[in-house]
């Protein structure tokens, strides 16, 4: 077939050109790629944090990249493309806890250390470790706070993110655990997932509140966008009876807290994740290793989790939580250096 003739000519040209790229891989200066799974306001916080890290730690390149849609194929294509462009260290939020593993294996196989950020790959994986919010704790605590706000009894609805987001299932289970401890006083009416896009969130959350609003006493949201949509909906119906705990720090959500529609929100430390993460992966690339006796947590489906922590924000500490986050980032950095890292 004519196709095979084309192939052999290509192969010939190939061998001539291959040397070009392999030589470049030996470049000693670190080029970090921070890769989000898709367009989403949470991950954009990593960009500035990465830039800060580049400056403070004297790292050659720290680039934040995001595929043009939150989709596994696009995410993998972006990672493959970055690998070919000689990025030699990666901070990655998994597009899927299992389906991203082969791509990570490819990257690590090419000599680039990978830390999974804000979400863990399912063990066993080739990532050095997972640096994320321990959701078995965070979501659990958030649920307990909500239960307390509700007075210890009632019905909760859980608005969650994508099912392919490694954190979603962990959060659902953690909330179920907290609710189980009430011995039936509190029940979860529903876990509605895949709400981390504006249109789906608008339609489903509004429809739910419109039809079941009188039936529930509490809302817990564990994703950015449903937090905003639910807060806005509560404001629109003028409801202060339903207690709500949200996730992350969108401006609209914070305004709703100030005005009393939402009790509080769990803010993850995106800054620490990208800032300390950049430091960590840079060190791993330049010859350091991880200590075998490091105090890893076994949670979020990973045996090597370092908790990036959360801050529970209410109307009381609305103005100061940013500083608290920066403080915690510094603490994490110190802790990482002394307890986790081993440099020659």
């Amino acid at each position: 077939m004519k196709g095979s003739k084309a192939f052999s000519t290509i192969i010939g040209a190939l061998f001539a050109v291959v040397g070009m790229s392999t030589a470049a891989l030996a470049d000693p200066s670190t080029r970090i790629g921070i890769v989000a799974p898709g367009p989403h306001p949470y991950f954009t916080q990593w960009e500035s944090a990465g830039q800060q890290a580049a400056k403070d730690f004297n790292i050659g390149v720290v680039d934040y990249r995001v595929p043009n849609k939150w989709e596994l194929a696009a995410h993998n294509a972006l990672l493959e493309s970055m690998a070919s462009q000689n990025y030699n260290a990666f901070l990655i939020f998994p597009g899927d806890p299992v389906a991203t593993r082969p791509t990570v294996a490819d990257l690590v196989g090419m000599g680039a250390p990978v830390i999974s950020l804000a979400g863990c790959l399912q063990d066993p994986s080739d990532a050095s470790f997972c640096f994320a919010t321990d959701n078995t704790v965070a979501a659990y605590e958030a649920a307990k706070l909500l239960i307390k706000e509700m007075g210890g009894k009632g019905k909760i609805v859980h608005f969650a993110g994508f099912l392919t987001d490694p954190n979603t299932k962990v959060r659902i289970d953690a909330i179920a655990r907290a609710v189980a401890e009430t011995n039936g006083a509190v029940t979860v009416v529903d876990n509605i997932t895949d709400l981390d896009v504006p249109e789906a969130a608008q339609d489903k959350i509004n429809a739910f509140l419109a039809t079941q609003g009188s039936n529930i006493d509490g809302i817990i949201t564990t994703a950015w966008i449903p937090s905003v949509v639910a807060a806005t909906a509560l404001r629109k119906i003028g409801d202060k009876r339903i207690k709500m705990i949200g996730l992350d720090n969108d401006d609209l959500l914070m305004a709703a807290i100030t005005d009393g529609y939402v009790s509080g929100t769990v803010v993850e430390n995106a800054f620490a994740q990208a800032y300390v993460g950049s430091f960590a992966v840079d060190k791993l690339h330049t010859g350091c290793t991880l200590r075998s006796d490091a105090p890893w947590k076994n949670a979020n489906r990973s045996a090597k989790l370092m908790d990036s922590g959360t801050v529970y924000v209410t109307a009381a500490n609305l103005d100061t939580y940013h500083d608290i986050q920066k403080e915690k980032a510094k603490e994490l950095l110190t802790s990482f250096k002394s307890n986790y890292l081993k440099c020659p």
Partner: protein
Amino acid sequence: MAVGPSSRRQPNEEASTALGLTLLIALAFVVFSWAAAGFSSPYNLYALTRTAALNVLLGLAMMVVIATGGLDLSIGAIGIASAMFAGYLMQDFRLHMMIAIVAALCFGGALGFCNGFVVVFARVHSFIVTLASMSIIFGAMIVLTKAESVRDLPPAFLALGKIRWFGYLSPMLMVSVAIGALIAIMLRWTDLGREILASGANSRAATLSGVRVGNRIITVHALSGILAAIAGIMLSIRNGAMVPSMAGNLGQEWLLPAFLAPVLGGTLLSGGRAWVVTTVLAAFLVTELTNGMLLMSIGEFWVQFALGSVLLLAVLLEKGRSTLMGTVEGV
């Protein structure tokens, strides 16, 4: 009518299209090697061949349906549903990998068969039937799987995804090309193939010469379903998991590459003409373009625009060529 002077002209048209595509592939390779850092690195070529394998299958799946003058919008849905089926067989029933894969192919074929059946017996255009079935199949799959991925696969299956030849070639591409060869043989040398092409070229004349057009339409839809299932399995091997959203919502993400390859490869939308070699080359070219553009810093967001423009250009050129040559085949 297809038989006669135009079929004698066909091998030359096919050869010239194939030559043109090959030249474009080579040209693109040179340009991207120079303009896009890392394009010719072994890893990138490996990733490229892996994606090309998928696009070739999608192109072939659409091509066989277009050959009878129809369309199949549901290949994404069928492909993913079949892959999920195989996944569940391996995960929940612990069936052997080969059994699960064969079962998935039968499943895909059966779904395709249903498409064809409705098209023929309800006498509805395949566009609307496959639009509806796309939604039904994907919807049913999501309901049954609760949108959860299959992640617990046997190690043998996972190992398939790690095979890499010479450091830059994915064996999956060879599988796709081999399948293409089989289809080419079928179309050129078997009665089945001739009947398929005749049904597309002029269904009335074909019926008069004794071809059971309805059966052929059902055949191509079933075949398309099987090819889609293979594509779904291939993607699952690459991912090491079966993720319901891996071809986008409703499987939509597969539509553009599935149409680009046959159209660029000279397949006529009105049916009756389908060339495997050019479709395969076109699929490879499209993959190359996407891959190269992604590597270039401005490329990432313009890829969609470029692909759409290429499709448009291809049909315009084909229209221009057929008008110039005086053939009355519609695009």
